[in-house]
């Protein structure tokens, strides 16, 4: 499982404050901690909300530079605004990177897709169009079809696309767990070369013991074919479940990853 560390996100208040005050050390500390905990990619999101929209390209550029000072791990540029992504790409040094995200919404799909194709970046593609998150599997797959057609036309390969089947809170609609899992499964069967990604925490919104729910869902998603996950890598219990899931789904030959993690003392039961 590819681990995308989510901790540098401006929707988190302490991160937002650090971005505003240009607290390089605080943000670099978050990056380092995630790398140590086993993150393969570091997501960076600089969206401070209304009032700072014009400044965001510059802010993102600064953030990308700050994080890259302390790690060689590839970054995930987290924005739906082409001008912000462009600013990030200008400052980005390194080969691999990921862009988070596009939807089937045509204009952004075209502009962000072109940026990604030019840079041969991996792209996270949300299984939705302009009208919000569809509640059915069929609608989500239709969005994936549109995205796949457009991105490959722009010059990306299927294996560079990470489809996010999306998650709606189970608290609101008890069928939504299965909708996400079925969508995930269908994406893997329609586009075997494409990858899949999920941000887990939405599933447990509004319920107690959210981590328990997130972990249970991770295991099911792993079985349905999940390739990458966006989460807090400092959650050692979740990271332990991921090691076990990789092993149990046949992705860990001779159980090397699991036993090695155990030797390092990072597994928690």
């Amino acid at each position, binding site marked *: 499982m590819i681990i995308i560390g989510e901790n540098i996100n401006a929707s988190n208040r302490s991160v937002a404050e650090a971005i505003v005050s240009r607290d390089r050390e605080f943000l670099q500390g978050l990056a380092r901690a995630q790398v140590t905990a086993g993150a393969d990619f570091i997501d960076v999101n600089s969206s401070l909300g209304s009032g700072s929209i014009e400044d965001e390209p510059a802010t993102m550029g600064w953030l990308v530079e700050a994080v890259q000072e302390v790690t060689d791990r590839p970054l995930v540029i987290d924005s739906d605004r082409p001008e912000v992504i462009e600013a990030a790409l200008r400052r980005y040094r390194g080969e691999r990177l990921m862009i988070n995200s596009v939807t089937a919404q045509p204009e952004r799909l075209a502009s962000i897709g072109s940026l990604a194709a030019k840079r041969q970046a991996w792209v996270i593609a949300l299984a939705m169009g302009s009208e919000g998150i569809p509640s059915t599997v069929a609608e989500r797959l239709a969005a994936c079809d549109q995205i796949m057609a457009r991105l490959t036309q722009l010059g990306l390969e299927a294996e560079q696309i990470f489809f996010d089947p999306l998650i709606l809170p189970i608290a609101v609609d008890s069928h939504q767990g299965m909708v996400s899992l079925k969508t995930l499964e269908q994406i893997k069967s329609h586009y075997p070369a494409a990858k899949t990604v999920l941000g887990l925490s939405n599933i447990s919104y509004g319920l107690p013991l959210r981590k328990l729910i997130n972990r249970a869902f991770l295991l099911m998603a792993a079985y349905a074919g999940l390739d990458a996950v966006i989460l807090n890598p400092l959650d050692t219990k979740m990271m332990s479940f991921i090691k076990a899931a990789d092993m149990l789904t046949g992705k860990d*030959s*001779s*159980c*090397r990853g699991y*036993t*090695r993690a155990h030797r390092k003392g990072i597994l928690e039961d």
Partner: protein
Amino acid sequence: MTEDLLSLIKENVIQGRIAQDDEGFDEGLVGQPGASELTEKALTEGVNLEDIINKGLTEGMNIVGQKFETGEYYIPDMLASAETVGAAMEILEPHLAQSGIKSKGKILVATVKGDLHDIGKNIVSILLRGAGYTVKDLGNDIAPQTIVEAVREERPQFLGMSALLTSTMIHMNNTIEALTESGLRDKVKIIIGGAAVSEEFAQSIGANGYGADGFQAVKIMDALRNSMKG
């Protein structure tokens, strides 16, 4: 040069790496040649076959045995190493006959009647092959009479039986009785193993040895072999 190659083979047995794409016990080894590539290379360079087996494969596996005993290695680590030895032996086998290297002896192995567990038996087989024995694997769910006939035809010096279930271990006893009745009991040394059985059980049915794991099986075989010489 030869020494380097042998120690590399040994190291890759310890790491459990058959081919260059394999991960090892330690990190960061992908891309370096594994035991198969190194064994091929040793053959082309004319390295002595006995040295490859003894100083490369067997010495490596001895260390794996120690690491398994101390709990540093888990079953998948040990299996990966055993498979590595098995892969290297497969490459060497066609060359063994010509080079005049003598087998340490022939052993028939079988999981007894009613028992379908073969993982343990297979590990023991690989380890014994790596240690220089000729192994004939009869498979699992093997009836006493089938074993008797195989002993008569194959004339092995050793017979190894495995049982994982308390309900099937009785067939070890039955097999030994059948061998006695056929007058073949004195022709073979019998060792047994498997989760269901123990040293005490081995003694009670008149087996010659009990191995708690594959490494012990090799040790017991070597000891029995030495006692036969004397």
